[in-house]
């Protein structure tokens, strides 16, 4: 008897799941149509315009000989931006690590402080770096420091959160064991938490360096520094060839950093 009953229940479960999927899909379609109507967006028009956009890019954005003459200058600025990104990320990572110790469940001093740390980190992370840059422009002006702090704040917020997660996930058990031997908190941090979270944390730091090279381009346009400034300058002079060379060099730099970081990851994992 229970067999028939459970079979009936099983059918019920399957039909219910199917219904759920169908309704979700229908709901998404309806939502898209409504949203498109509100903002007067026509997907067809957008896609048909694509070939035109591509042909414009091909005819205007191919780096010219004049652009290549500017390559040394571009590379100089690119190096400056890359080094800034690296130094920002590393500084933010060191601060974020000690901050995350206060936020993590396994090492926190008190529950209230831990929530405060998580809130501060969420605040820094969720204000976009461009907004930080615009706010900081008031205090520092068009200066490299503005870019530095704008990137620092978002990186710090982001890394604090990921470090807290890594510490909670990876080192809760060995932390307990070291406390049980009579080790102090700092001994436990250096002997258990740092070794067991190092690989994962370094992965996040490398990822943030890549992200920051991209972000710093945008911020550089606002603060008139680094590679972003150069892009802005060429673009406004209608020198599209040079502007696209800037973009291509940024892509190359990010790819290079990605390759290096995947090598580093392999070594430390």
């Amino acid at each position: 008897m229970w067999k028939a009953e459970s079979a009936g229940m099983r059918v019920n479960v399957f039909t219910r799941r199917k219904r759920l999927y169908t309704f979700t899909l229908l709901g998404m379609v309806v939502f898209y149509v409504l949203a498109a109507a509100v903002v007067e967006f026509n997907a067809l028009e957008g896609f048909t315009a694509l070939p035109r956009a591509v042909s414009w890019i091909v005819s205007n954005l191919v780096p010219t000989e004049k652009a290549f003459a500017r390559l040394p200058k571009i590379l100089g600025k690119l190096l400056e931006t890359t080094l800034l990104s690296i130094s920002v990320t590393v500084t933010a990572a060191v601060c974020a690590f000690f901050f995350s110790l206060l936020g993590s469940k396994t090492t926190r001093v008190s529950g209230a402080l831990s929530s405060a740390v998580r809130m501060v980190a969420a605040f820094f992370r969720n204000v976009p770096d461009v907004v930080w840059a615009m706010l900081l422009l008031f205090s520092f002006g068009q200066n490299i420091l503005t870019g530095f702090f704008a990137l620092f704040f978002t990186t710090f917020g982001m890394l604090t959160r990921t470090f807290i997660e890594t510490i909670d996930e990876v080192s809760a058990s060995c932390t307990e064991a070291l406390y049980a031997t009579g080790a102090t908190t700092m001994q436990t941090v250096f002997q258990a938490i740092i070794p067991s979270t190092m690989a994962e944390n370094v992965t996040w730091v490398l990822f943030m360096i890549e992200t920051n090279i991209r972000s710093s381009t945008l911020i550089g346009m606002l603060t008139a520094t680094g590679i972003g400034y150069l892009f802005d300058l060429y673009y406004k002079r209608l020198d599209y060839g040079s502007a696209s060379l800037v973009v291509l060099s940024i892509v190359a730099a990010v790819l290079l950093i990605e390759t290096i970081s995947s090598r580093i990851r392999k070594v430390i994992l």
Partner: protein
Amino acid sequence: MSILAFHHVSKTYDQKSIALQDVSFTVEEGEFVSIIGPSGSGKSTILRCINRLVDATQGTIVFDGLDVTKLGKRDLRRVRTKTGMIFQHYNLVNRLTVIENVLHGRLGHKSTLSGMAGLYTEAEKEEAFAILEKLGLTEQAYQRCDELSGGQKQRVGIARAIMQKPRLILCDEPIASLDPSASKVIMDHLSNINQTMNITCILNLHQVDVAIKYSQRIIGLTKGRIVYDGPADALPQSTIYEIYQSNKGELITDVEG
């Protein structure tokens, strides 16, 4: 003289779930005691109250003449150096080598700074290697812990505990994740440590037969209360059913007969 005494200890988590209710017992120096009971009966809580990984809600726990429930940070650390702990999931720093994990047992004896930097004396290192030799881990000394088998990891756990030069070793389900042959190796080592080094051992075990075979004394725990405390060989079958709150034929130990 008793090395450990629980006096009317109770523990409530989050003011709701009761883990221990009015638990009292004493352990003499050199004893080998097993605590058995169903999951959630408070076995882990008892062990963790001794080295204060968990704070008891009520009652006093006297270890080596000191009431551990009232200790400040510094004294608590001193008590912890005298109580080694072995875990079901070994709780090693997996990315470090075996020898580094064993030396962690000395951290409680060192200054904060030298412990942070991992600076150990030659004597400490020699002792760590001697312990590894005793536990048959000499070849693995420089291997990373995540390359080891479960049985080897637990031996590293034991080595770390012995490195502390403890007077008491607390074992929280030491063989629950191990196969029968690794389990025997671990139990034999613990028994050997108990007899040759005169270190008192308190174990939480799920395996009633293992508890009866290895320990002199068994404490049976049900819903945070002690329902049996006596010699292992005198544990009546009916009490086992009482501890696990089950009827004849419902326990895995019944299958053989």
